[in-house]
């Protein structure tokens, strides 16, 4: 379990300041939710941590070491995008084993890990299915298993519940929390829905216009919202 620290991270697209002096620190094994309205810079923050975007200023630090110069493939982070991004030409087992195979992991270790991951996400019966044959919740679990199989230093989730229909959302949310607790991975999860954020996050970082305006546990945010934006977001849960 690793610790992430962001130091004064800035990122602009032309004139638009997507990230403005972002400072954030996780604890080991924590589920940190980054919440905010659309276009506030949440996904940019995730992509900067992942290494897909270079920050204009500031540093991304993992366990005390800056990883700014490390390419994405060497950062060892698990990434689950909004649409889960399963490789459509591979079945569930092949999707999960991909990250281990590209690192030349011995076959027996791959087989054991895939078996363990399938069991963790309760999809052992579906190992030979293609992504097109899975439901939204199942796709999400495969994407999680694929990301966790490589034992990532950090797990990055981008709106993991946005493709899940309302009827199964509560169940999927609970299952997501359970899987990640069992895996013990430090997780940064971007969400726009306050209800999901409060249900999932050990702590929540509220973002607006590229800045983090408050970080705290759900309880702290409810009791002492520091800003009108935070109050407004919390209020939407009770509408």
């Amino acid at each position: 379990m690793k610790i992430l620290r962001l130091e004064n991270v800035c990122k602009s697209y032309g004139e638009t300041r997507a990230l403005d002096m972002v400072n954030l620190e996780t604890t080991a094994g924590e589920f940190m939710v980054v919440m905010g309205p659309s276009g506030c810079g949440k996904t940019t923050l995730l992509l900067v941590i992942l290494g897909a975007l270079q920050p204009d200023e500031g540093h991304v630090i993992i366990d005390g070491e800056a990883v700014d110069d490390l390419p994405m493939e060497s950062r060892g982070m698990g990434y689950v995008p909004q649409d889960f991004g399963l490789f459509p030409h591979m079945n569930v087992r092949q999707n999960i084993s991909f990250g281990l195979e590209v690192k030349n992991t011995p076959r027996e270790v791959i087989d054991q890990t895939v078996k363990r991951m399938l069991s963790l996400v309760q999809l052992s019966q579906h190992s030979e299915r293609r992504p097109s044959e899975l439901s939204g919740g199942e796709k999400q679990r495969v994407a999680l298993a694929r990301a966790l199989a490589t034992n990532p230093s950090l797990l990055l989730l981008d709106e993991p519940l946005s493709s899940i229909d309302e009827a199964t959302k509560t169940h999927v949310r609970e299952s997501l929390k359970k899987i990640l607790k069992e895996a013990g991975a430090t997780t940064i999860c971007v969400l726009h829905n306050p209800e999901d954020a409060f249900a999932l996050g050990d702590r929540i970082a509220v973002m607006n216009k590229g800045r983090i305006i408050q970080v705290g546990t759900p309880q702290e945010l409810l009791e002492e919202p520091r800003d009108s934006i935070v109050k407004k977001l919390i209020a939407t849960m009770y509408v």
Partner: protein
Amino acid sequence: MKDKISLLFAVGALAFAGFMLASGFYIYLIACTSWKEVAPQFLSGRVLGALFISVSSSFIVGILALVAGVPFAYFLAYGDFRFKSTLETLMVDLPQTFPPVTVGLVYLILLGSRSPVNIAFTFTAVVIAKFYVSSPFMVGFAARRFREVKARGLDLIARSLGADTRQLLFRIIIPLSRRDLLAGFSLTWARAMGELGATMVFAGIIPWRTEVIPTLVYSVSQTEPNTAIAAAVVAETLSIAALISLRRGVREKR
């Protein structure tokens, strides 16, 4: 009013379809009406020779387009450099609109008897002339598909899982683009089969050496019309068969 427009559209569509079908398939009607004279020409040495040169040179062009065009398409899709769209216009769009005769002339000056590398009027010249005109089809198909894969973020995921460029290419991008590469190959091949202008100027019309089906049709259309008709039927049938079989293969894999 709405019906009148529908009627006009229907007439326009029918006129277009009629024109295209007649232009494409009338040669078969001509061949059938003078079958006795045309039939022996199918096995004439000159038609077979031109057919061999056409098919083999077009196949080589297709392979070269795969080998060189696919890496170029990768850089168009994934590269981040200035003047990318200008480069794409120059390398993909322009060769499809540039008059092939002028391309042939450029090669003749550049690689003909006035240059130290004199390869004009050879089989290599046939391949080079066809390559310039045909390979952009491969690059266009490949680049479009590579961009679709990129837009889905699959490259980011593969990279985050530890894949290097080789693994990303051969395990994700190319397997997901196989159908489009096949379609690009078939169109490149078919376009190369039909290329006339650049080949004629740069490679000439030397039977059994540089004469391809289109140049044969051109050179004998006035003097030996039956040979020209037989050659045209062979070329067209091969192109149609290749396109149908490859497209069927593409559809089946979908």
